[in-house]
């Protein structure tokens, strides 16, 4: 360990604790408490995450103590150890990388996860799989934290997969329910397919990084001296995002078909990111993932795991920016997804699905915010992280609120709820805060982060994206208030809704805390904490952006009230007027059907089945043919073997005589 790293504060050198605590808890809860005393599994699991949150807080405090706000925030690797040695000079380390975005995510993940754990104690109370649930939840938190602190691309890949599998386990938590099983499989397989791209991207980066390491490595190593705990490795982000290496990767000599290798690699990596963050067209798993228990949806499919894709793009941002084209792809995909999902979100009836599409849409927002940034104009980068930060709080709050509602009325359909405002006052209030926040109403947090993103788009010279962003902002306000109105206002539409009652303390306490965070998170001077490159992020409110954005939000809210307050007849009439278009949107543009067609009709039927047939009949047929030939020859020759010893004797003697004759005639 180099001297400078050893001199770091204790908590930074031991930042690995933040992931290790949940891991130890996972093992302990899974192996000991789950089978023996599941009752206290929840408490132990929750306490461990609170402890991790404490460590994360300490890490953040010390990091910003070391690098005060406003100054440059270099990445440091205060801890790393060799995990897997591929060959001399190519080693995968496991370690901790601290820079503004990883510190930010550590805080977000641990705090949201801790609150969700707490909430789950109430929500999952009495469930037969209580212990299992907390085991998986701990596993997830461990994996997510491991992903966040990864100092190299292979560690991120490792935890990326672990996150995927814990998400799979949690979506399929109700394993007796066929829809949950199908959803969990779908989530895993779709993200796995995306990870294929990621893996190939890693291979390309790894190979070219390794071959260039001899030339570029020493320069980079000199630059990062004193900041990393082990020797620089070709997989390290500090190396992979260094301009010298990127310049080599982008060299025309390596281009394939006119596209630079860097662009290809980054687009492949982005494929993985798009899978995890459910960007179009790999978004199909996220709405179905709502089959999992609601706290899971809040934690994994809203606040933390799905932002892993955004985080990955941010982590490799210098590489994306260097390529340029790859960043444009990010922007286009993000912008399209945000609009696409917002449109679908307006038509869904399941409260969690609406929230899921809203998540998609907001993730698209974060993606295109990254896409409009550049190394010399990093406002979008900061804005994206800002939105990630605020979104985590209000979206977790929305889901947990939805969970409280579902817990009370035992249904997911918004048309069986209504008038819950009086029955569940705390839930109602917190839900309203979150709805206002996501709709971008001043002074709640969503307003600030959205404003930053739109400003970045406008300043970055992307007026079309800016316009799209405004449209999405209006749609967001519209569909969020649509469910707010239908669920909390009006009259009870179903008897369940009439008998609803407020959630217990362990459930509403996290709601209240998250509501507080959602309300004030916007006032954090984010630009001085998180940024990349030289220029600090955009500060303050730009009225040229704030006024159109707020107007869009207000228009959306107004439209929602116009259509859905009262008996909702106007909405039905509107839907009928749209006719076929409405149906197409409601069926999610038939993307799922297209996937089913491709997988079942084409891949299963036209690839797998022929291969299975070919193997049984052609390849194995050859084997059986050789066996058959042997037996056939045998039975033909067998006719000579009548089983009569004397006949054999005649052949023997005759043969000998014949041979003797031949030899004799040859001799003379």
């Amino acid at each position, binding site marked *: 360990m180099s001297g400078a790293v050893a001199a770091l504060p204790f908590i930074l050198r031991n930042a690995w604790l933040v992931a290790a605590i949940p891991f130890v808890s996972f093992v302990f809860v899974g192996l000991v408490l789950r089978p023996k005393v599941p009752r206290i599994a929840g408490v132990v699991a929750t306490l461990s995450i609170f402890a991790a949150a404490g460590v994360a807080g300490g890490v953040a405090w010390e990091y910003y103590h070391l690098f005060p706000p406003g100054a440059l925030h270099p990445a440091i690797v205060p801890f790393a150890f*060799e*995990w*897997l*040695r*591929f*060959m*001399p000079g*190519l080693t995968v380390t496991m370690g901790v990388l601290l820079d503004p975005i990883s510190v930010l995510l550590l805080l977000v993940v641990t705090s949201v996860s801790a609150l969700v754990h707490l909430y789950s104690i109430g929500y999952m109370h009495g469930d037969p799989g209580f212990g299992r649930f907390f085991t998986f939840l701990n596993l997830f938190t461990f994996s997510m934290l491991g992903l966040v602190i990864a100092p190299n691309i*292979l560690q991120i*890949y*490792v*935890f990326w*997969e*672990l996150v995927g*599998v814990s998400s*799979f386990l949690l979506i*399929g938590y109700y*394993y*007796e*329910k*066929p829809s949950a*099983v199908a959803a*969990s*499989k779908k989530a*895993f*397989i779709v993200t*796995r*397919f995306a*990870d*294929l791209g990621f*893996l*190939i991207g890693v*291979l*390309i980066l*790894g*190979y070219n990084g*390794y071959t260039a390491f001899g030339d570029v490595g020493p320069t980079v190593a000199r630059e990062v001296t004193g900041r990393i705990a082990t020797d620089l490795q070709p997989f390290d982000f500090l190396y992979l995002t260094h301009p010298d290496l990127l310049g080599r990767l982008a060299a025309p000599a390596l281009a394939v078909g006119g596209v630079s290798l860097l662009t290809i690699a980054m687009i492949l990596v982005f494929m993985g990111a798009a899978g995890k963050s459910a960007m179009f067209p790999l978004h199909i798993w996220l709405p179905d993932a709502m089959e999992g228990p609601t706290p899971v949806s809040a934690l994994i499919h809203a606040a933390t795991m799905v932002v892993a894709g955004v985080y990955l793009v941010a982590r490799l941002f210098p590489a994306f920016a260097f390529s340029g084209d790859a960043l444009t792809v990010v922007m286009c995909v993000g912008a399209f997804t945000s609009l696409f999902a917002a449109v679908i979100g307006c038509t869904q009836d399941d409260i969690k699905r609406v929230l899921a599409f809203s998540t998609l849409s907001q993730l698209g927002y974060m993606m295109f915010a990254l896409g409009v940034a550049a190394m010399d104009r990093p406002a979008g980068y900061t804005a994206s992280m800002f939105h990630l930060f605020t979104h985590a709080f209000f979206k977790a709050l929305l889901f947990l609120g939805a969970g409280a509602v579902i817990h009370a009325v035992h249904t997911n359909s918004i048309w069986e709820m209504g008038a819950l405002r009086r029955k569940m006052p705390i839930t109602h209030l917190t839900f309203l805060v979150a709805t206002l926040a996501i709709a971008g109403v001043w002074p709640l947090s969503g307003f600030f982060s959205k404003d930053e993103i739109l400003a970045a788009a406008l300043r970055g010279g992307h007026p079309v994206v800016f316009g799209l962003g405004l449209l999405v902002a209006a749609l967001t306000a519209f569909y969020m208030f649509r469910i707010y109105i239908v669920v909390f206002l009006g009259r009870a539409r179903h008897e369940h809704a009439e008998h609803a009652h407020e959630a217990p303390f362990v459930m509403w306490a996290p709601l209240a805390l998250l509501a507080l965070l959602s309300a004030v998170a916007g006032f954090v001077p984010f630009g001085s904490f998180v940024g990349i490159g030289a220029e600090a992020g955009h500060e303050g409110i730009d009225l040229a952006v704030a006024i159109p954005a707020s107007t869009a939000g207000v228009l959306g809210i107004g439209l929602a009230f116009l259509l859905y307050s009262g008996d909702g007849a106007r909405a039905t009439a509107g839907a009928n007027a749209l006719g076929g278009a409405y149906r197409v949107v409601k069926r999610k543009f038939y993307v799922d059907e297209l996937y089913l067609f491709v997988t079942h009709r084409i891949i*299963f039927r036209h*690839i*797998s*089945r022929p*291969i*299975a047939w070919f*193997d049984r009949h052609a*390849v*194995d047929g*050859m*084997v059986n043919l050789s*066996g058959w030939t042997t037996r056939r020859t045998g039975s033909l020759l067998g006719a000579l073997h009548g089983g009569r010893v004397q006949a054999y004797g005649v052949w023997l003697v005759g043969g000998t005589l014949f041979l003797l004759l031949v030899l004799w005639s040859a001799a003379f």
Partner: protein
Amino acid sequence: MGIVSWLIVIPFLTALAVLMTPARASRVIRWIAAIGTGVELVLTATVTWLYWQQAAADVASMRTAAFFKLYLVERVPWFETLGITYLVGVDGISVAMVILTSIIIFTGVLASWNVVERTKEFFCWLLVLVTGVFGVFLSFDLFLFFMFYEVAVLPMYLLIGIWGTGPKEYAAMKLTLMLLVGSAFVLVGMLALYHGSGMHTFDLTKLDHAKFSTDFQFWVFPCIFVGFGVIGALYPLHTWSPDGHSSAPTAVSMLHAGVLMKLGGYGAIRVAVYLLPDGAKWWAPIFLFLTTINIVYGAFGAVMQKDLKYFTAYSSVSHCGFVLFGVSTLSLMGMKGAVTQMFSHGIMTGLFFGLIGMVYGRTHTRIIPEMGGLAKVMPWLATTFYIAGLASLGLPGLSGFVAESQVFLAGFFGNPWHSLTYMQTLTVIATMSIVVTAVYVLIGLAKVFQGPIKDPHFEHLTDATWPERIATGMLVATLVVVGLVPGPFIDLIEGSLMPLVNRL
């Protein structure tokens, strides 16, 4: 007699002890087998420790060595006139394989706790078979190697033919005949080495000093590689595997898929590539191509299978493709990946077949669509099955990832002799398997364990018994330990693989 010989002798002595026990005392027989294999496990740990003591100091010198170094050697002349020696010993690769075999046979005995038909003969043959396997991994004289190889292959015929299920005679016949054809190739190759070296010796530590001409290597390498390829399920010679594995009884499937298929990769590394590096260089692109087919084709083949054992057998074809793919990359990383995959797949597939046997013993069906919702009644088996499944789809944290990541990287990094584009293209095709594997593992397991309980009879089934828990728990622990802390395992094998790669 040295400790290495004891490793070979103990299973045989156990077999003799079983033979001398009255057939009616099946409880005693089971306990004898369990104790014998347990002692073997302890002995394996000792050998590993001894090896580590002696070899740790040599790793640095291995970096440049061209000849592998043998430890705990026992060398006794046997047929001196024919150049046959009783030469046993260990190096890193064989230690790894011996650990694998010990674990699999111990858990295999535990998993066959409920064999009722001809218990005595069953365990007897099982132990004879495993004697052969240990012999192969420990002997460094080609003649001895081959002899043990045959000892390992032949009891399989009886074990499948008598204790199997389904079309067992057909499967046993097919398996034995195909493997014998393979060993005929190997025998030809070995005799060629014997004469071609001009030394008239079978001693591997002497043969490696011989200079074989390029022409000679060109002809002999494919002979040996394909011969071992048959047992390593090289496409298109893999078809014994689905039939054989699905007909074999549990412990035999475990041992066969878990250990015997590894003899292929082991022999390919130990004999073919080590002795014939030039031949390896010439033929590698062709075998890379075939093994890529293996990987992808096996995975696609598994998607449509209805029988759990066929399903696992095809997945084995795919995973064994990784072994030979790794070997064919001819790089240190690839070889390490291959050996890691041999170990990892051995444990994983042993777990798979063990679990299938346990599930079958309860449901009396192996047809996937007939099952469903079993996780509710047998949570232990379901959990371990899922862990095996996740290992097979290469989840980090389990050993499969350690192996596959090395093989993929090795393929992508290429080697100095072959076209980089060619190898990278094949690697990219091979990576497709990670998706297909996820598809079949998840679909298959979900149908068996998740969803509502399909058959009301399943409601009353029981979860794993204690022997079963110990067996599966041990295998899962191995998967997890190698997956989480791969360092020691890599250190174990790396030193012994370096000389091999240095020769290329």
